[in-house]
């Protein structure tokens, strides 16, 4: 009886927390081109969601909107119950977010890019400590301790003084993952993080992400064409086409028995292509 109450309590708490990410009728247009048309979806705390879909279906756009690299055309993005694309004016009305507001909000979100985007003018350690020192206000020593823990996690403890250009793509990407995690984001965005890598380097990066998925409760939005990887780390897959979710489900279900014809076609193409 007591355990039941606790379980029920936990349940309501989680519900009270609500989704970490919520897209509410989000529209994104580039000129005439409508990439996202009134998109609704939400992600629960700690959930790992994989976004799949053909090229141009809007997967990257979704992550870039969340990272505040792009602005919504219409609709509202919410993060942890607070507006991200918008902020409240003195009357409590939602108005487009200004730069100062975005600066505060985006700390909760980290992103790893397809092309790594490490800072070539800094060594590996500096790449990781730069933001903790200058954004979170950690001392250099504290940031270095944190960075070394993360370098160990990604298997690059011996590379802290290396220059990014001297690392393989896989190593660079693992540094980029460590750099994103050093900010302790609540949400991690991964946009095709292994697709710029030579095939033999993909597994190392994926293993690091598997470790992170199993050892932390960080919420993840993952864009990938690697179905095995998606199956290992994510609880839910969203299949996009032309900026709309046309099917969603657990990876087990969606990959083995896709219901929509377009999903079937897409999965077949991915399997043949790789």
């Amino acid at each position, binding site marked *: 009886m007591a355990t039941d109450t606790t379980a029920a309590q936990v349940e309501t708490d989680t519900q009270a927390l609500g989704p970490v990410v919520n897209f509410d009728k989000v529209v994104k247009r580039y000129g005439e081109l409508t990439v996202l048309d009134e998109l609704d979806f939400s992600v629960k705390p700690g959930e790992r969601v994989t976004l799949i879909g053909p090229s141009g279906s809007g997967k990257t756009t979704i992550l870039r909107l969340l*990272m*505040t*690299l792009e602005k919504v055309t219409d609709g509202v993005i919410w993060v942890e119950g607070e507006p991200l694309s918008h902020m409240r004016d003195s009357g409590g009305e939602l108005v487009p977010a200004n730069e100062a507001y975005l*600066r505060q909000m*985006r*700390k909760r*979100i*980290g*992103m790893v*890019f397809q*092309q790594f*985007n*490490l*800072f*070539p*003018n*800094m060594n590996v350690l500096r790449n990781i400590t*730069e*933001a903790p020192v*200058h*954004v979170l206000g950690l001392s250099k020593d504290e940031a270095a301790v944190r960075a070394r823990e993360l370098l160990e996690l990604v298997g690059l403890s011996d590379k802290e003084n290396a220059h990014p250009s001297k690392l393989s793509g896989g190593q660079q990407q693992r540094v980029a993952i460590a*750099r*994103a995690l050093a*900010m302790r984001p609540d949400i991690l965005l991964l946009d095709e993080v292994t697709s710029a890598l030579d095939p033999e380097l993909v597994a190392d990066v994926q293993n690091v992400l598997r470790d992170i998925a199993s050892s932390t409760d960080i919420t993840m939005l993952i864009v990938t064409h690697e179905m095995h990887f998606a199956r290992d780390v994510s609880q839910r897959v969203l299949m996009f086409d032309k900026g709309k979710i046309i099917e969603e489900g657990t990876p087990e279900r969606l990959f083995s028995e896709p219901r929509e014809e377009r999903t079937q076609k897409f999965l077949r193409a991915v399997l043949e292509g790789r």
Partner: protein
Amino acid sequence: MSWWNNQAALELFPLLLEGFRITLLATLLGSLLALTLGLVFAFIDRTAPEYIRRPLGWVLQFIRFTPPIAQLFFAYYVIRPNLGIGVDALTVGIVVLGVHYATYNAEIYRAGIEGVPKGQWEAVTALSLPQGRAWFGVILPQAIRRVLPSLGNNVIILFKEVPVLSAIAVTEMVRVGKEYTSDHFAFYIEAFTIAGLIYLVASYPTSLLMRKLEVRLGN
């Protein structure tokens, strides 16, 4: 050797060297001004609102397309007397050359900043780095590295432009040579051969250094 007077040459050499000291000083300070002010111009061009950028653009364009000697006369005969405080000709010359080459350097910096990949800005945003860190920690170091050879080249061009300051009676090296020869109505060969050699001795190692720098930055 009737065309070459050793006596005059020996007398000229220390005088020319003293003039060269002024030339170097003007090059050094002028370039320092050109490099910092150019960066400031480029920075304003990237960050300031339109109503500041546009008029600044006109002014820079104007400075770039008028000859330094005209600017020098204007600064010396029009602006300087109105300053109230005594500013010597050398200072006026350094400021005029510095500002003139700053307008060129601004273009170079601008190209350098534009050449930094978009992904660097995106990483900066994804890490929430403040604007100051983004510029001074990430973007400018990469931008400047790219354009260091071009900036260095402008230092050399400014160096060769210093004799223009003789027009407002700054006793840089060429002016020293000219004064000596007009005093004696002779020794042109001695004066300008030695001056040329001094230029060569100073320029050659600099150009070697620059080439080395370019090779190093190339990879």
